[in-house]
């Protein structure tokens, strides 16, 4: 007669048995390390940042006064500071919008038409730029966009040199060359963050069944109507996810505007210089809170508008 059970083969089997009897124990053990990391290191430092932003700096001694005040936040509204916020948010919004427009056809092709080898080409093409160093790419772009760079050379070569000059003559966004104008900053931001828009968009579009598009056509809708009423609403969670990346990454970046652009400050650069040479930690913290608040407002609006309903 054989027994109804196999003998335990060692501690592994006993552990499996323990987890089978108490499934919550396994969940707790698995969650403990990430929760410690998130809770202490991540949330903890965020709280520290938030607390610092409510302190102020003594103008004479230059020391941080650890007393609660809203004065530091008030300083954000000084025109020179407020311009920085406005400039950064405008840039982030422009980059995000352009990324949506550029990413959609790529993501749509990958989700609906690419199969097998073409799918591999798509992933490779989108991910490849992420494998090389961010700094190398940005400096490469500085050369590409420079006055003596390939873009100027190519524009002159095809007789479009005056078009480029006209674009650069545009007030505010123009400049001496592409690499010293907002246009240049915008182009490089767009290049660097585009993959973060394409991938979530592609994932969202992939989840839209083909029969959904056929149903729309079957009910009489043309291509534009289907795009507007079916594809875009269903892809919206992906668009929002992608825009969270492009928007927040642009809001926080301090290297690209420092290397390429008009040398006017963005939020990231301001935080960097305030906590460094100026030693004004409270104002740096207040500046750092701005992108967080903007993102919270953005997500709330997105949620209210039903962007996540299809999830």
């Amino acid at each position: 007669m054989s027994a109804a059970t196999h003998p335990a083969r060692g501690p592994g089997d006993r552990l499996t048995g323990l987890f089978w009897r108490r499934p919550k124990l396994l969940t707790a053990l698995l969650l403990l390390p990430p929760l410690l990391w998130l809770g202490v290191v991540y949330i903890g430092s965020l709280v520290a940042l938030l607390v610092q932003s409510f302190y102020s700096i003594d103008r004479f001694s230059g020391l941080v006064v650890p007393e609660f005040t809203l004065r530091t936040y008030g300083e954000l509204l000084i025109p020179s500071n407020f311009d920085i916020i406005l400039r950064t948010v405008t840039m982030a919004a422009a980059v995000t919008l352009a990324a949506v427009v550029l990413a959609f056809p790529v993501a749509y092709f990958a989700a609906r038409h690419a199969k097998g080898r073409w799918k591999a080409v798509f992933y490779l093409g989108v991910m490849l730029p992420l494998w090389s160093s961010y700094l190398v790419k940005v400096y490469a772009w500085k050369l590409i966009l420079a006055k003596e760079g390939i873009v100027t050379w190519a524009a002159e070569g095809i007789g479009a040199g005056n078009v480029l000059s006209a674009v650069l003559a545009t007030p505010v966004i123009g400049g001496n060359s592409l690499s010293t104008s907002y246009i240049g900053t915008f182009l490089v931001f767009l290049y660097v963050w585009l993959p973060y828009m394409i991938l979530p968009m592609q994932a969202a579009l992939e989840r839209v069944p083909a029969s959904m598009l056929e149903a729309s056509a079957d009910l009489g809708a043309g291509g534009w109507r289907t795009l507007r009423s079916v594809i875009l609403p269903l892809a919206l969670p992906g668009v929002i996810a992608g825009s969270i990346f492009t928007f927040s990454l642009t809001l926080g970046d301090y290297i690209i505007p420092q290397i390429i652009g008009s040398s006017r400050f963005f939020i990231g650069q301001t935080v960097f210089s305030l906590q460094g040479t100026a030693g004004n930690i409270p104002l740096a913290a207040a500046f750092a809170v701005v992108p967080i608040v903007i993102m919270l407002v953005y997500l709330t609006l997105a949620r209210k508008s039903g962007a996540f309903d299809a999830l």
Partner: protein
Amino acid sequence: MTPAVEFRSVSRHFGVVKAVDQVDLSIAEGAFFAMLGPSGSGKTTCLRLISGFEMPSAGAVRIFGQDMGSVPPNRRHVNTVFQDYALFPHMSVRDNVAYGLMVRGVARRARLARAEEMLALVKLDGFGDRKPAQLSGGQRQRVALARALVGEPRVLLLDEPLGALDLKLREAMQDELKSLQQRLGITFVFVTHDQSEALSMADRIAVFSEGRVAQVGTPSDIYQRPATRFVADFVGSSNVLPPDLTVALGGPRAWASLRPEAIRLVADGRLTGTVTGARYLGAGTRLMVQAGAPPASIGPRADGGPTDAPRYLGQDENGIAVLVPAGVAVPEVGAEVTLDWEPSALHLMAGEA
């Protein structure tokens, strides 16, 4: 009268695969037409040729006499109930139903009122505010039906409309679809692999096999007078008798079909044999009987369980399926039985040379 849908030697090839091959069909206006066949037989492709999601490789599809060669799906006056329903998850049930009207520019108030009417027609009044995800499978099916009917199509296409429902609901929906079709008078064309569904709902059936139409006819034509071996076997798993056996049983030299339920167990009859297997079906028992002395290799199984007897008599010597209705004593596996049937039950198949 112009047929609602007409196929003129239509083919649809995908590379070397002939999904639909030289199909000629004519579907009369107001018909409840079934396209029946196993998976891969071309029936769904034919449906998609009507809706416009497939283009014929050769031949012409006509709807009410008009050639559809250059008409895209959104301009065909034909609507589809999709197999997975394809309801828009981000829209309420009411907006889903009103979609076809919105696309055509019907004013909001009018189209929502019309959507309400359609929901009432499929007995879903009061469900308009819900999202499709909040509905059961059967309710979603009704929404898909209402959405397809709201634009008053001249032909309604249904792709395996009841495939995802459980048996009880499926039977209820069969009756409902049938009465809906009779009330609206719209031509319904539906695709199914379920022969009982086709037999009970349709008034004409096309049986598909390997991209071709094996037979078109009324349900009783198809069931009682199958034209080919395939039809006889696929619809109701008939006994297919090769010419030799037909001759042995007193008929002419031709392929014949003999329905299992037409065969009776009697004391003195046309054929004697040994029971080699039995499958209990609830409403009856399906016996496999080997005529004459069974070869040792296909005798009854030692454990008395059902044997996997092949069905074509030409392949397995003389195995024959017999349906014993409930209430009649079922002989044991291994028992000797005598079989008899009315001479008219032996149907000669014209489509087999």
